[in-house]
């Protein structure tokens, strides 16, 4: 027992409260207590997988209740889609070659396509402030801290915690998240930060004279070398020019279906060795590059 029974209840509560406040400060300002979080997360793995079973059961029921006719029709549709995709892929390969040739002429580094790993979200009802989700792949499947997660329509976020069987994804809507982006139309570069779960993202530090319009698509710029280049992050929905303020208020609608996507892709190994080496030298704490530059960029 930590405290003797003779000491007053109030005193014990006070001591533990101070301890908890200390823990919160340590967790908020420094990242010292990540080990505690990881240990607790490992304990919670069975609970998280159990919570997912009803969803899995419904999925299974859907498949088993479908008639052969429906499945055949779906198969035909998927084959048609595949054909269309393959045709557009032919053009893409051609364009990629052209692109790398042009980049070679400009003496800029070539783009490297990442390796993708499929993962599913574990369904659970988290608090409304939470802009985090849990994925069903962990370090056993090669998921590492800082890897980027995308869905079919855009960037979802990055991995901030890994256990052997699960990993934790920080969505781009979290206030701790920042994504370096560029305007697809004008090439203007800025940073998108989250404003909380279920709220539009905001593009920060953009002056009135910058080339930005409502409807512009913002794609990752790969500055900061965390997010791979060229994936859509969001579309500008609203620009608010405030008189007297140096920067504008810009709202961005995320491209990724953050609320609906259940199948996602984890991107890995998209950096070439030179960039990795450069990052390694730039990072102040060389032993743990991922942990220090982890959530904030």
């Amino acid at each position, binding site marked *: *027992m*930590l*405290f003797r*029974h003779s000491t007053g*209840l*109030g005193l*014990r*509560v006070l001591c*533990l*409260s101070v*301890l*908890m*406040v*200390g*823990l*919160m400060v*340590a*967790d*908020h300002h420094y990242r010292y*207590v990540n080990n*505690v*979080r990881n240990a*607790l*997360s490992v*304990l*919670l793995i069975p*609970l*998280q997988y*159990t*919570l*997912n079973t*009803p*969803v899995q059961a419904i999925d299974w029921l859907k498949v088993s209740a479908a008639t052969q006719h429906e499945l055949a029709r779906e198969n035909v549709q998927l084959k048609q889609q595949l054909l269309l995709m393959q045709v557009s892929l032919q053009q893409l390969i051609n364009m990629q070659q052209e692109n790398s040739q042009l980049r070679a002429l400009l003496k800029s580094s070539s783009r490297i396509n990442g390796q993708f790993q499929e993962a599913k979200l574990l*369904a*659970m*009802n*988290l*608090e*409304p*402030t*939470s802009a*985090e989700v849990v994925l069903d792949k962990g370090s056993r499947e090669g998921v590492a801290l800082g890897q980027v997660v995308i869905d079919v329509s855009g960037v979802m976020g990055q991995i901030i915690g890994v256990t052997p069987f699960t990993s*934790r994804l*920080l969505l781009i809507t979290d*206030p701790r998240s920042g994504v370096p982006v560029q305007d697809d139309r004008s090439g203007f570069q800025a940073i998108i930060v989250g404003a*909380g779960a279920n709220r539009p993202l905001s593009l920060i530090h953009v002056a009135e004279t910058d080339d930005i319009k409502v409807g512009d698509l913002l794609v990752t710029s790969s500055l900061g070398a965390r997010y791979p280049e060229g994936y859509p992050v969001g579309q500008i929905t609203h620009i608010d020019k405030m008189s007297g303020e140096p920067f504008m208020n810009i709202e961005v609608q995320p491209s990724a279906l953050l609320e609906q996507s259940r199948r996602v892709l984890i991107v890995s190994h998209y950096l070439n060795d030179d960039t990795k080496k450069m990052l390694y030298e730039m990072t102040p704490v060389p032993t743990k590059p991922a942990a220090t530059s982890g959530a904030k960029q």
Partner: protein
Amino acid sequence: MTYRLMFIVFLSFLLAGLLQFLPVSELLTIWVPQWVALVIVYWALVLDDRFKLLLPCFVGLCLDAMNGTILGQHALALLLLSFIVLKNAKQLRRAGRIQQVVEIGFLILGYQFILFLIQGVIGQQLTDWSYFAASLSSAIIWPWVSVVLDDCCRRFVKLKEE
């Protein structure tokens, strides 16, 4: 605490956690009761002197790890909640059913308010007031929680003899 009682306590929190994090449709999410907080209130009421303050701390830390909130947030809120319950255990136990429901409702509201304050301090303020709807549903569900847990206690552990 006997091992049997410890097992029942553990099981009750496991069940509460499952119910609290069970994925539900979007319309229902704000109405999901604070099951874990209710179970903490119940054990603080029943165990009284034997209630260990490390219990709400540990359970709270697990909630934090699950939700991805800063470590200590739920732990502090649950700790203060159990403190208030322990201080007023006698009055709460003697209160009639309706009165108890109202009091539990306010306790859970206080618990949620502490969470809300901490969120505000770290700069992730909630703007949606429907967040507090959960304290209403928690109060309504309280009689059933207490009856079910009372029944479990009566059947598997004899609290009175210890």
